Every structure is written in C-alpha cells, then in structure tokens.
C-alpha cells in the first residue's frame, strides 16, 4: 500500500534567500542560530526593499562550526571556509572587487578562538565588512569543548572539573580595537538583532555584532540547563541591556551580568577608503561604503 503524503506549499518570507532544497538544516531543536540567521535575512530583505543593498553585492562567508553551516542554506554568493578563516577569505573578496559587500557569519570558536588573529587585525584596520558572531559559549559541533567564551567555572567536555580560565569578552575587545560598529544582543531580542544588522550592513569600516545564543543540547547539558526553556531563561536573567559610557562598563560575567546594547556606532573611513586616499583607483567613486557614509 502506498501512502500519499500531501505536499505542503508553505512559504516563508525569507525563502527566496534560502536554498530551500537543502532543508531541513542540521541545527538542534532549541538552537539560537536560526533566530540570528532569520534576523539577517529579514534585514537583507528590508534593506533591499529600500534600495540600500542589492543581494547580488553580498558575499556570505562562514567558517567551521554549527554557525558555519549557514552558508550551505543561504542563497547568496558565499563560501564555507576552513576553521577560523572567513574574515581572511572576506579580505580577498573585498580587495578583488570593492563593489562587493562581505558578510561574515560564524561562531565564537571560529572567530575568537582559532580565527582570533584575523578578527583583531580586521578590526584594527577598520576593514570594510560586517561580522555577525553567534556566541553559544562552547565548541558545539565537535561535542561541547571549552571555547574562549566559555564562562569561568563552567563544565565542558574538556574541563570536566570546571573551566579554570577567564573568558574573552569579544565585543569589548573589538570595540577597543576601533571598529566602526559594535553591538551585542541575545536571541531574546530578534528585532534588535535585525535592527542592528539593518544599521551595520550599509556602513563603512568594520562592523561587529555578537549574538548570545543558547545551545541546550551541547552547552546546556553540561551545566545543568538541558531544557531550551531553562537555558533561555538563564541567559535572559544574566543579560542586561545598557548604554555603557566606557569600555570598562561592558561586562561579560555569566554569574552577574553580560552587557547587551550598542557599544560603538561611528562612521570613520574604512580600509578601502583609506587606500583611496593614497591611490586613485578607478573604483574609488563606486565604493558602496562611500555611498552609505553620512559624510
């Protein structure tokens, strides 16, 4: 006997930006990556509707890890690069065709761990790209090992007696290096994430948005929050939206406060315009960043 399954013609508003034939995706139930990705895709559609960006300009670059798998689902020019290298790959894209807009979408282990050197120098150069870092506090795809963002004392598969190290506050670090835009939100604020991307995507220089995410299946299970709801509530409790006046007011402390908000929002010339101040390339007047700049 053959069972006829009716085909559901369900369309989502961002489907045209997805390789829907690749779905379902690999992410676990309760994972926050999808919330972040959807916020990005909604922002792209909103900016496109306003004529600010054209999807053909965007190059969506990811590294290795759970978040890195996003490039396999997004219907844009893109790359799924080796572990830690999406920012490095994005340099080449921008240098080769300055009319393109690289968007790096990757995890905390990829960008702040193995790829940390590229993150530092891209921020220092104010290199023209948007980086969205989904921070799930651990190396999830490989089974829950310690990440540079894992809270002090937290159990992981490589720190079975608790993390003896201090974590890195990546957003604060990037802010200290002089990036044009730095914000940190959590998946509890999908509208804020989308608004941040809408503001940071059409912007010159280095733009960095950290999104605190929940990973109940891998991170949560080792610290006693295996239920997505419990981990969601635990992260919400510690996340505090603020307007810090100094870098010192930005906190990354799992026990007391992880500061959310927009930490830097400025419009200084990015790397590409800086080289245009030295060399008169024929593309200098066609830089999208020049069009977007307030000056």
């Amino acid at each position, binding site marked *: 006997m053959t069972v006829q399954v009716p085909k559901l013609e369900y369309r989502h508003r961002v489907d045209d930006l997805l*390789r829907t034939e*690749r779905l379902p995706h690999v992410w676990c139930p309760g994972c926050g990556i999808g919330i972040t990705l959807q916020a990005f895709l909604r922002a792209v559609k909103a900016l496109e509707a306003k004529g600010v960006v054209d999807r*053909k*300009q965007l*190059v969506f*670059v990811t590294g290795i890890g759970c978040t890195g798998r996003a*490039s*396999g689902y997004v*219907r*844009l*020019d*893109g*790359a*799924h*690069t*080796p572990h830690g*290298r999406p*920012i*490095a*790959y*994005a*340099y*080449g*894209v*921008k*240098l*080769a*065709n300055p*009319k*393109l807009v690289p968007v790096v979408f990757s995890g905390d282990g990829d960008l702040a761990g193995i790829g940390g*050197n*590229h993150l*530092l*120098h891209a921020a220092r150069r104010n290199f023209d790209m948007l980086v969205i870092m989904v921070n799930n506090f651990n190396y999830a795809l490989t089974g829950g090992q310690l990440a540079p963002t894992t809270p002090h004392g937290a159990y992981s598969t490589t720190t079975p007696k608790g993390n003896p190290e201090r974590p890195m506050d990546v957003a604060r670090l990037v802010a200290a290096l002089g990036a044009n835009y730095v914000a940190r939100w959590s998946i509890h604020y999908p509208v804020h994430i989308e608004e941040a991307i809408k503001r940071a995507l059409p912007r010159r220089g280095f733009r960095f948005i950290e999104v605190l995410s929940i990973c109940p299946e891998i991170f949560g299970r080792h610290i006693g929050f295996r239920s997505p709801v419990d981990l969601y509530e635990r992260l919400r409790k510690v996340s505090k939206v603020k307007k810090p006046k100094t870098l010192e007011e930005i906190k990354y402390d799992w026990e007391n406060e992880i500061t959310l908000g927009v930490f830097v929002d400025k419009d200084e010339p990015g790397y590409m315009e800086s*080289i245009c101040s030295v*060399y008169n*390339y*024929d593309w200098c007047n066609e830089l999208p960043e020049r069009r977007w700049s307030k000056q």
Partner: protein
Amino acid sequence: MARREFLTGNEAMAEAAIAAGLRVFIGYPITPASDLFEYLAEKLPSYGGIVFQAEDEIASINALVGATYAGAKAMTATSGPGFSLMAESLGLAAMLEAPIVIVYNMRTGPSTGIATGTGQGDVMQSRWASHGHYGVVVYSPWSVQEAYNLVVKAFDTAWRLRVPTIVLSDAVIAHTRELAVVYEPGEVKVADRKPPREPPGEFKPFKPDPDDLVPPMAFYGEGYAVLAESLAHDERGYYTTDPENYERLVRRLEGKITRNKHHVVSSEARYTEDAETVIVAFGTLARSALALVKDLRKQGKKVGLWRPVSIWPLDEEGLSKAVEHADRVIVAEMNLGQLYREIARILGPTGRKIELVPVLTPELPGPDELLGYFEKAGVEI
C-alpha cells in the same frame, strides 16, 4: 613593448605577475620573498592592482582564494615557513579549484633553519603540504629569465585548469641579478576563466566540461549565488558524503592535471643524445650541474643533464627520452633525496642504476664543489 632589464629574480617575478594581469597581491614579510612584495608595493598600484599585507600567511592564502572567486588574478610570495602555514588552505584552493599563484622561494630548512641560505628541501612539501589527496602544479626556474617566464606560465596554468600553481624558486634566484626580457600587461598570453554558459539557477559551479575536466567559473557579484564549499561537494557545490560523488571529485582534482598534461609539463635535456650517464638536477643547482657536465665532457666522459622545469607533474616522457642511452642516472639535489624518489619511481623498473648525491649546504655550490659532493656520496663519475 618588450624590454631588457637587469633584474633580481624577485623583481622579475613581480614584473611577470604584472604582465600576466595581477590585480591582488597579498603577502607577509619573509626572507627571501619580502623584496618581491616591496617591489609590487611600489609598482602594482600604478597598474590598478592592490597590494595588501596580511597578518599572517594563513590570512594570505585564504584571501587569495576569496580574491579569485571575486574575479581577480591573485598571487602571494613566501618561503618554507610561510608555506607551511598555508598548508591547510592550499587544500582549500585545490578543493575550490581556485586559480591562485604562489611564488615559493625555498630557503634552508627545516624550521627557521638558515633564513638567508638557499635550499631545495621543499620538493615534497610543495606537492603534499595539505591533507587529503589533491592536485597542484609546481614549476622550478633555474634563471631570472626562466623565473619570469614561469610566473607567466603559472598564471596561465592556474586559470586554464583552475588549479593552485606554485613557482618553486629559491634564495639564489630571488636575489641574483641577470638580464631578462620583460613585457607589459596584454603582451603575454595568459588564459582567462571559462565563463558560465547557463543562466543563474541552471549553472552548476563544479560541473566540469567533459573534455578538459575543468568547470566554467562564475564570479561573485554576477548573480549566480555561487557557494564555494570547502566540504566535499557535488556539482552544485552542496555538501555530500556520497561515496561515488567523493571518488569522482577527488579523482578529478588530480585527473584534470593529467588530462591537460600537454599544457603543463616541461623539461630540458642537455648533452643527452649519446650520454651514458645522465645527471638529474633542478633549479639553480642544475646550473652548477650543467657546468660540471661541460667539464666532464672535456675529459671525454659521455655525461648529460636532464632538468625538470615542471616538478609536479614531471615530464616523464622527456625523462625517458633523455636517458635512452644511459645506464646510470644520478640525482643531485639540495636535500637527502626527494626528487630522487620520483626519478626512482619512474626509472626504477627500467633496471637502470639510480644514485643520489645529496648536497646539504646553505650555499649554492659551484661545479667543483658539486663534484666534491659526488665524491662524498661515493658516486663515481
């Protein structure tokens, strides 16, 4: 217009890259390749190209791959330690079929070794640095002029086959000044990509043409939504663990080089027509070997030289022809036997005696000194 200039190898290779249409150079300082970088930093912007100093060689090679996907002819220059750092993404370039060019000036290894010395210790590293099985093309020049020609050739091979291509030079070529004929952009022949023939939506970025096994290439920004997938991928660029797809992909990454060998391989034979003994040497050491062959010829000895210009793959037919009348083949190289293994693999079954003369020194030996290494190795000639 062609012009003659008195250039170092590094300057000549930089000139060759400009003539070949270089748009993006990405480098990290390292001896003996930094002055190639410096030369381009002065000159490339006036040709509309960009020079970028990366934070490390890992960034360099990943950026190069991104640059080729965005449509630019792109190159870096490095030496052994830098190339070691590039190893992982050399595999990326092979997997994504990114036409990157790497000038690789060998110095004395291993490790930091002798930074200012020369060497030939990286024959195997140039071919097998990255994990998994993949294909690359490696050329090795013996003069400043040939270094120039081979950089042009490297761009042609890289873009014709969509394969990472390496010019395996050394510290001697890098800093030796010789006369070389150089050209301007447009005056040398370099292949361009094969553009997509199907519209977006139908085009498959990793679908090879059946004749040359090379897929046409869509650039970023052209509306094709190209996914450069480092995972094992199908013709659409989508990750798959399918065993048949995997076998087809990996066989093709190497097979497209074999299929197009006539564009790739190159070698030179000197005094081999009647040679009973053939010395095999490559790069700058082949110059000392040629001088030694000439000295030995004056003594009436029937000695010849065979010099591979493409190291990976080797011109096996050229080698077989060169040793036609020889019952002895002596491989002299500045390591403990790397090219030797390949020569032994090819000629071993023919029953010829294949001997190794290791030349372990940070300085290029002259012909008399080279003869000393023959004696040291117990190889009579």
